[in-house]
């Protein structure tokens, strides 16, 4: 049997914004959406070894070996020039992790952790790895009290969710928009599967948090906010709903011309949602 490997863009040992408590976070490379508002656009695609980044690297950490772009982390100074010049929103600095590699990371950091979160990119594009990893954690005596979470855009179809949910403790789900035309504009994909995922996760008790990105003039319209309120009410008025705000940090391309979301507007919308009966609306702790 071929054990699955994950293509990992980044690992964090300390995160207090990716689920309950402190979490080790794996950011997997590759996404099935292409949102112009993405604040990690370099996680969207897998490297195609075009080599455009190699001459740009000031420390010589990038080379081409047998037609493949190779990254030497020991001399990389994390200037991220390679990400800036990548024509396809990929990342030459990814690392391959086996399940055992991640288990070792978890052992090393166990005293500090409440759990692990797989994020991205879109985590579920590497579903087999997540199933293998979560299954291994759940059956490991030293690790089984860690909670296993996924941060997802919800595009994974229902039958596939059913293969991962038995070993998953919770999912943070992004809903980008309710109007489907708007959703297509913002993600390149339709939202039917996303909304179905929200219901499925809620019904199986695994919906930890819904997240909604407020983009001025796009997702903050009265209609969108009303649809959001109705959607959450149909699940449970106490469903945790986190309002995220569109910012320019990390964004590339056309969305840099879009206005950013400001605190007073976020507070106003949060109040509207609360007036509509939602009891668990969370606003950002920090505005950049």
């Amino acid at each position, binding site marked *: 049997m071929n054990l699955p490997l994950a293509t990992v863009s980044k690992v*964090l*040992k*300390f*995160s*207090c*914004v990716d689920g*309950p*408590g*402190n*979490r080790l976070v794996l950011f997997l490379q590759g996404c099935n959406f292409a949102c112009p508002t993405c604040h990690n656009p370099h996680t969207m695609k897998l490297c195609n070894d075009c080599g455009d980044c190699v001459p740009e690297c000031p420390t010589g950490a990038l080379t081409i070996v047998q037609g493949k772009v190779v990254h030497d982390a020991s001399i990389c100074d994390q200037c991220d020039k390679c990400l800036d010049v990548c024509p396809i929103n990929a990342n030459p600095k990814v690392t391959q992790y086996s399940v055992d590699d991640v288990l070792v990371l978890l052992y090393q*950091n166990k*005293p*500090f*952790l*409440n759990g692990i979160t797989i994020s991205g990119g879109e985590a579920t594009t590497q579903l087999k790895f997540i199933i293998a990893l979560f299954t291994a954690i759940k059956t490991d005596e030293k690790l089984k009290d860690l909670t296993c979470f996924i941060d997802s855009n919800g595009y994974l179809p229902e039958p596939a969710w059913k293969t991962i949910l038995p070993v998953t403790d919770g999912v943070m789900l992004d809903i980008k928009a309710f109007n489907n035309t708007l959703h297509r504009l913002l993600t390149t994909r339709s939202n039917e599967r996303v909304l179905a995922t929200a219901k499925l996760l809620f019904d199986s008790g695994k919906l930890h948090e819904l997240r909604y990105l407020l983009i001025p003039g796009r997702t903050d319209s009265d209609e969108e906010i009303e649809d959001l309120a109705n959607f959450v009410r149909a699940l449970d008025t106490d469903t945790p709903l986190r309002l995220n705000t569109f910012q320019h940090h990390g964004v590339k391309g056309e969305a840099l011309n879009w206005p950013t979301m400001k605190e007073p507007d976020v507070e106003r919308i949060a109040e509207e949602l609360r007036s509509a009966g939602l009891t668990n609306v*969370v606003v950002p*702790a*920090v505005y950049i």
Partner: protein
Amino acid sequence: MSELLKRFKGITEDPALSFTQKARYLSLEAENSLPYPELDEETAKALEERVICDMYEGHAPFKPRYVMPDYSVVLEKGSTFLELEPATTLDEAINSLMIAYHHVPSVTNMPVFIGRLDNLLLPYCDEVSDEDLYKKLKLFWRYLDRVLPDAFMHANVGPTDNRVARTIMRIDAELKQIAPNLTFVWDPDISSDAIFSQACESIIECSKPHIANNPLHQPLFDDYGYGVASCYNVLPLCGGASTLTRINLREVARRSKDTADFFENVLPKYIDLNFRLTETRIDHLFNKSGFFESFLVKEGWISRDRFTAMYGIFAMAQCVDELQAKEGRAGKYGHDETANQLGHRISKVLYEAVETRPMEHCWRGKAMLHSQAGLSDDDGCTPGVRIPYGSEPDPVTHVQALAEHHAFYPSGVSEILTLDETIENNPVALEQLVKGAFQLGFREFSANVSNNDLVRITGYMVRLSDIAKFKECGGSRINTTVLGAEAAETGKILERTPRVMSHELAPRYSQ
């Protein structure tokens, strides 16, 4: 007019000082116009070059640096000297403490330790309603900040879960005062989860309390116990520390040819010289100053044989980086495994030296090693064993890099973790970080949450808004990254305007 008189005159006319600050600086100048206790030539040279340092404690030590009274004595027995009856009610107990604090010296002439307050006050709380307890303690807290304005003044609560500890942490988070500093003593076998959570939530609110790891501290002390004073000095209760001297490890590394020379020759030499400096200062305090004739000793608030000497070090980061460079290695302290292990080795050598050197007039016959927080003019040196400001890795990596040091510093490690304000929505993450740190051997845990007005600089608290106000007056741009700012810069600011200052960091008039 002589130079000395000119300095006196300058202090009296300095418009930036309050009159109490003037009085303090005048007294320091007077003490320092006396000849220094006699040092041998080598020690005097090392002190002159500031490879070793006396923290500018003054030329004629006539009081211990840190006094850790057992305040239960004055509460239970009263005081003949102060004409106080034993306390019988909470009002009387608080009143007696307020009086007592004015008679407890320290290096700053203000008390650095105001007691394990829940232990002291709980016996008087049976008949007091929760509402009254809150009101009385809130007034007490306001009094402390306004009358004893020293950021190093330190209260302790815990490890038990009790009304006084809970109410004090609640008030402290509400008032967000600089003084007093606060330690919550945590013990997983004694403290409830609820009070531990309250302490963590309070850190998110106001960067206080500091949390002490009781299972690591308690075994080093006797049944009488310990207190945490100033910025994380863990000292025997009913005693304290006579003095705090320290070695500038960067300067030791600079005087070494390579790592071998550092360990074999240069470090042992300066370890010895710092001992000689310490002994000279202790000798003056015990044999010449007459301090131990004080009523504090006669009435049993403190005991002459319960004073240790704090043996401090700082600039570990610069020391390790200097030695790494001499060995042709690029890895930096805090980020590289080889560099970190070199640091741990230095700590171990220091610990063994301090544990095996017999010291006269010291509790248990020896000094206690301390990772020292710094002064306001440390010239680019990082406090204690800390990772330099602004280059700290994530909090977990940070703790993992430093944890091994903690076993070597029985009188405390001054350490601060800076946390992103996103922690506000997730206090459980902070709880887990503290638990992880303690499981790895951290003796104590302090954190700054980056949007709090109230933050720690080298261990004491300041209000960022005070600094911002000062900077506005001075015409400079407000630096929002002041969390990582050098204590030197901040220290100078503090010397000039705020009502509550950190007297330990400003041991001399510096104009």
